[in-house]
């Protein structure tokens, strides 16, 4: 009889701390098992070991040769403006910070905002009115950023919590539409939330990633009249691929379904107009391009839809009047505040507010144009230097991230460390190193980064 290796077997091997799973040639290994092994870094070893060197050589084959060079629109920030903004971020004096897909650098203004909170706590002691006002101001600033009405905005603590609030607000047992379509390009946390809700009766399907992208045809094919929600990312965290949100919204709405957008990898680098783009729900956090710190996230929900959502991930701040202290019934807030749970992340809200002010001041449209210029530089130079660039070559279809795949025998985190020694912050993720600039990055800095990266990778 054949032996069959499943995802669960790999999970068990992992729990037992194994680094490899050995199987014989009669064994069938399911695709899920292979995927799990890859994710947990567990080697699948066939007994009469396959020749390894061949696969390494295969992987290194450059795959960019046929791509046309990209062209960016003109625009963005002038050199003088960038130099002026650089003064706002002290670390940029000595460091090239292109790890913004993970965490942006500290600005003086955000630091000051945090200090204002610290000062009030120190000198006044308890200052709830001021603190809660800070949270409300942050919500207002976020509403401005995405062209929403503040009543359509809720504060949360992470995109995971925000997505959980939304997923838990649908009564899956009674809901006639049971399907949720998510994608293979989601930051995995979003998928975990949906998968966890399968026990309440929803069914999760995935739009596949093809050549690093999600295709509109697949939305058209998979989203149907049974689909309650399409949960998708604006920008793919791995390689920066950016979707056409309006086109997706059109498909989703034509099937009577709702669109939930994870905007984390895009917020602060691309203008968002929730009305024009016809987005039903949106989540995002602040520590990446929005220049904030961990601990805060936001939910947008279209006004007309609010009433149908009754979250079971909830708490007193989600009630119409939290200070009523009623105990026998639920009275969800009229606005998007119904998605809120407990005491809000005050200190993170002070930081988030100031970070978003900076972004609104510089202007998302100009930041987008600036980043397209930097993308063009990174893509074309990466190609010229023979790096394995796995991002889309059309700069209008990509966010700030340009991802370079490292060879099989290289460790992306080691590359990140080596780059740090050269005063460059890049961000490693899986088999890729991500170069993610912002409006304070100069084209010549991208040149330095790509050359240094090529040097480290060829060492």
């Amino acid at each position: 009889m054949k032996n069959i290796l499943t995802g669960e077997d790999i999970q068990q091997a992992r729990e037992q701390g194994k680094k490899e799973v050995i199987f014989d040639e009669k064994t069938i290994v399911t695709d899920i098992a292979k995927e799990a092994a890859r994710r947990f870094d567990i080697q699948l070893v066939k007994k009469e070991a396959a020749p390894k060197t061949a696969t390494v050589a295969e992987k290194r084959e450059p795959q960019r040769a046929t791509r046309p060079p990209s062209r960016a629109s003109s625009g963005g920030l002038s050199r003088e403006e960038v130099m002026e903004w650089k003064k706002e971020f002290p670390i940029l004096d000595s460091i090239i910070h292109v790890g913004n897909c993970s965490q942006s650098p500290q600005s003086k203004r955000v630091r000051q905002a945090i200090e204002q909170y610290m000062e009030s706590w120190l000198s006044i002691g308890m200052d709830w009115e001021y603190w809660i006002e800070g949270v409300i101001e942050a919500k207002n600033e976020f509403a401005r950023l995405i062209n929403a009405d503040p009543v359509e905005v809720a504060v949360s603590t992470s995109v995971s919590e925000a997505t959980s609030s939304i997923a838990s607000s649908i009564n899956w047992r009674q809901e006639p539409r049971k399907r949720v379509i998510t994608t293979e390009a989601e930051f995995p946390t979003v998928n975990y939330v949906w998968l966890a809700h399968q026990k309440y009766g929803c069914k999760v399907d995935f739009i596949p990633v093809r050549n690093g992208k999600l295709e509109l045809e697949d939305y058209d094919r998979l989203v149907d009249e049974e689909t309650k929600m399409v949960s998708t990312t604006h920008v793919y965290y791995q390689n920066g691929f950016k979707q056409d949100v309006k086109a997706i919204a059109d498909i989703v709405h034509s099937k009577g379904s709702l669109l939930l957008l994870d905007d984390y990898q895009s917020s602060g680098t691309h203008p968002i107009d929730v009305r024009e783009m016809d987005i039903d729900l949106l989540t995002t956090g602040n520590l990446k391009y929005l220049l904030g710190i961990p601990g805060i996230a936001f939910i947008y929900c279209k006004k007309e839809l609010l009433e149908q959502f009754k979250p079971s991930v909830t708490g007193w701040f989600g009630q119409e009047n939290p200070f009523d202290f009623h105990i026998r019934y639920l009275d969800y807030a009229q606005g998007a505040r119904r998605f809120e749970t407990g005491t809000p992340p005050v200190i993170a809200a002070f930081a988030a507010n100031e970070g978003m002010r900076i972004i609104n001041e510089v202007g998302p449209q100009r930041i987008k144009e600036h980043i397209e210029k930097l993308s063009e530089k990174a893509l074309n130079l990466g190609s010229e230097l023979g790096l394995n660039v796995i991002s889309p070559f059309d700069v209008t279809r990509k966010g700030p991230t340009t991802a370079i795949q490292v060879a099989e025998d290289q460790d992306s985190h080691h590359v990140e460390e080596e780059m740090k020694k050269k005063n460059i912050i890049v961000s490693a993720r899986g088999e890729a190193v991500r170069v993610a600039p912002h409006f304070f990055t100069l084209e010549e800095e991208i040149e330095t980064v790509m050359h240094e990266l090529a040097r480290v990778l060829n060492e």
Partner: protein
Amino acid sequence: MNSLGFVETKGFVAAVEAADAMAKAANVTIVGTERVGGGLVAIIVEGDVGSVKAAVDAGAASAKKVGELVSVHVIARPNAALEDFFKGIREKKK
């Protein structure tokens, strides 16, 4: 045509366990259960390729626990001719 997934077990209980796990794990439709003879039972599901892969994996893991798992297989893009074949099975069941 959608993708097809197969889990074959020895004995009916393992097959039912597999079918249950498959239906719970992903958005697939159970197209049929075939008694192949010799105590072998095959569960056949249909759905998009990702769901079918997930279902087959979950079905296999569950079947192993309660009985004997014989084989698993996924056909990502079945030939159109298979459609008639499975239509036959479905009609036979009605």
